[in-house]
């Protein structure tokens, strides 16, 4: 190996301390963790080497490390650790920094992980919606309104984007009468594109760096980088993720698999619901004209609505179970820091306001339901806009890392 000049990044160690890795320095490199881990490979196992790299402040070695994403933070290593150094929690903190480092806008990632910035981050969508509804959307509408009006055969000049004293829609409360569907799309479609672009940039940087690091450390069989190869691993990896196979290999916190599954399936269900209703709305508008399209609110008898309710409840119960788990006082409970709580808060907030808006709508509480819906949209926007920067980005980074590990032959046991 020869001589190496190590350049410790002290600020990196400080950040790890703040994000749940404050036990890091207790590690004395006994390597119990690498054996305790049920999913660590035999070749260059983790997390012992990650612990020393972290304690030496070797950020570059960690943020591009495929192994930090193989870890599912089950806590088996933390329970066995003779020093209480909690390697599982340290790797969680490292992943957090890795998301920040790989994101194309590090400043935004820092803000997402900073509790002091939370009011500002929430205020952004709250104000953005007003500006969009009152100022920007009408300006855009002047351009695209006539086109959409022609395609969907409706009087585009009658569109009000934000209506704070909406009338009932066919005798019932409709959230779209308050916050127009066109406005929702004008805000959320660009936001979603923003998230996708951020992820694309982040993953591009991450994947190549991860590959170079893995080859340099001799951890993988495949030395050629191939996007195609990584993509081909996706079906197998996705199946494993959906089945929560890795969670089930843990012993200490196996129950986490269930709550994670509820939240993940909840999100997947809600994604399907949103996509279906969007297709139904615009599909029927194309055929019958926008004014006669199948608008929401949809009947509770509609099977898609069943899925929506079911997914919403799964999200609610799953997030509550996760919160309960993290509040636990048992020896093996996960340590939680702000990035964990802010994400859980967001998920719970989404579930509560989503279901709340529906329930209050059915109850006929006009003011409350519009307010709840507005807050719900704020949370949804936060989910979209901040996902490439928050802990939730593990959705993409972990999937890419797992696909890479599968492709490149980083054998997990």
């Amino acid at each position: 190996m020869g001589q190496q000049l190590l350049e410790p990044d002290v600020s990196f160690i400080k950040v790890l301390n703040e994000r749940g890795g404050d036990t890091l320095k207790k590690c004395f490199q006994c390597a119990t963790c690498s054996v305790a881990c049920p999913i660590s490979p035999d070749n260059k196992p983790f997390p012992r080497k990650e612990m020393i790299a972290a304690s030496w402040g070797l950020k570059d070695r960690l943020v591009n490390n495929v192994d930090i994403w193989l870890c599912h933070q089950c806590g088996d290593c933390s329970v066995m650790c003779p020093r209480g150094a909690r390697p599982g929690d340290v790797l969680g903190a490292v992943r957090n920094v890795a998301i920040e480092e790989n994101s194309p806008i590090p400043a935004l990632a820092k803000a997402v992980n900073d509790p002091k910035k939370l009011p500002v981050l929430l205020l952004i969508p709250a104000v953005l919606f007003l500006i969009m509804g009152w100022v920007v959307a009408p300006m855009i509408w002047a351009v695209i309104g006539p086109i959409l009006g022609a395609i969907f055969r409706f009087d585009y000049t009658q569109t009000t984007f934000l209506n704070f004293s909406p009338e009932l829609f066919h005798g019932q409360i409709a959230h779209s009468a308050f916050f127009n569907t066109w406005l929702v799309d004008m805000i959320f479609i660009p936001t979603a594109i923003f998230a996708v672009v951020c992820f694309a940039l982040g993953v591009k940087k991450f994947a190549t760096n991860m590959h170079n690091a893995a080859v340099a450390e001799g951890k993988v069989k495949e030395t050629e980088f191939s996007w195609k190869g990584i993509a081909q691993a996706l079906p197998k990896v996705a199946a494993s993720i959906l089945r929560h196979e890795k969670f089930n290999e843990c012993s200490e916190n196996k129950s986490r698999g269930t709550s994670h599954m509820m939240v993940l399936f909840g999100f997947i269900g809600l994604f399907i619901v949103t996509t279906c209703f969007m297709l139904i709305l615009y599909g029927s508008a194309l055929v019958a004209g926008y004014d006669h399209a199948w608008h929401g609110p949809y009947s509770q008898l509609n099977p898609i609505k069943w899925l929506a309710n079911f997914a919403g409840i799964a999200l609610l119960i799953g997030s509550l179970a996760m919160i309960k788990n993290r509040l636990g006082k048992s020896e093996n409970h996960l340590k939680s820091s702000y990035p964990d709580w802010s994400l859980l808060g967001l998920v719970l907030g989404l579930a509560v306001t989503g279901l709340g808006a529906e329930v209050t709508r059915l109850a006929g509480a006009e003011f409350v339901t519009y307010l709840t819906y507005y807050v719900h949209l704020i949370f949804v926007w936060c989910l979209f806009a901040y996902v490439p920067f928050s802990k939730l980005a593990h959705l993409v980074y972990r999937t890419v890392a797992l696909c890479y590990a599968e492709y490149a032959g980083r054998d997990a046991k």
Partner: protein
Amino acid sequence: MTTDTAARASGSILVVGGGISGLTTTLEAAEVGYEVFLVEKNPYLGGRVSQLNQYFPKLCPPTCGLEINFRRIKDNPGIKTFTLAEVVKVSGGPGDYDVEIKLNPRYVNENCTCCGECEKACQIEVDNDFNFGMDKTKGAFLPHEMAMPARYVISPKIIGTEDAKRCLEACKYDAVDLEMEPRTINLKVGAIVWATGWEPYDATKIDNLGFGQYDNIITNMMLERLAAPNGPTKGQIVRPSDNTAPESVAFVQCAGSRDENHLPYCSYICCMASLKHACYIREQYPDAKIYIFYIDLRAPGDRYEKFYKKVKEDENVFFIKGKVAEVSADASGDITVTAENAVTGEKVSQTVNMAVLATGMQPSAALNKLPADLKYTDDGFVINDYAAGGMFACGCAAQPADVVSSNQNATGMALKAIQTLVKR
């Protein structure tokens, strides 16, 4: 000989524990003229040291050192020893302690000549604690060959049986006394030295290391007995499952030590003990391979370091930096230990005929609090309060230590005890 227990209160010292530390304190204080009472809970003196095969680093048998100490005790009229004795209660203060001591029955009196007829007559066998239960002794037994006092013991387990009567009848010297009862005596002493020593940490508590689950995983102290000529195998190191000679042995260092889940501290002796054990095995089996899995090897001081370097030169001894965290056994009884080699970054699974857990030392006081007003660390080591004075802990009652340091410490505590008496 001063046997009157009421005599010279201000001039007497009580030493609790007859291991190497207690013996040293006793002798150092007695040989400058102080009256010393030595209380030992076992039926013999010598403690853990008497269970050892050899000392490190000189690899000489501890018997010779113990023999000299026993000779000095016998020759000194100022020493009164009580075996099978426990301190029940301590009252009073520095310079004037009143100590209640319970003497458990031995059922054999001083007429015993160690002829062994009672042992032959006895049929019941009991677990041999001296050999950590690896063999049995008769219900009437000599704790070990050079037990001091050299006198048989009849196990309370056979009292009231036909066997007890057989022992009584077999004895030609009227040495067996089945009517003995526990009795209590009171001593007045000016100072107390607690030399209550240590227990091997209970390896069954380390649930990932398989002790108690697999026959061929033993502890370092068990290996000591296997290697000792007066041990259960007469010094042949064989693996327990089939009594075959091991061709490969793994040593698991820090088994329960430096571990917050067990003993959070370094037990100090286990590294040197395993290096010594490697020598035992290599001497008996010239082709045997030894694998020592460690976190850090601690060979403090020049002499120990030299010993470590010598063992390291042996091509059949392999040192792997990485703590064993997982063990398994196959049908043949072989043991596979798994660790990450932190130097190469590879996970190692080494299959061996036998594995030895280098378990650490736990102060006896951690398991049974001493019947006196003493302060302890969280781990049960006695904290010496020199300001209060009067009572002092030495040897492994105060910190994990090897024999040399225990002796030095015990000598120092003899002086502290004497100072308590003289200050009055």
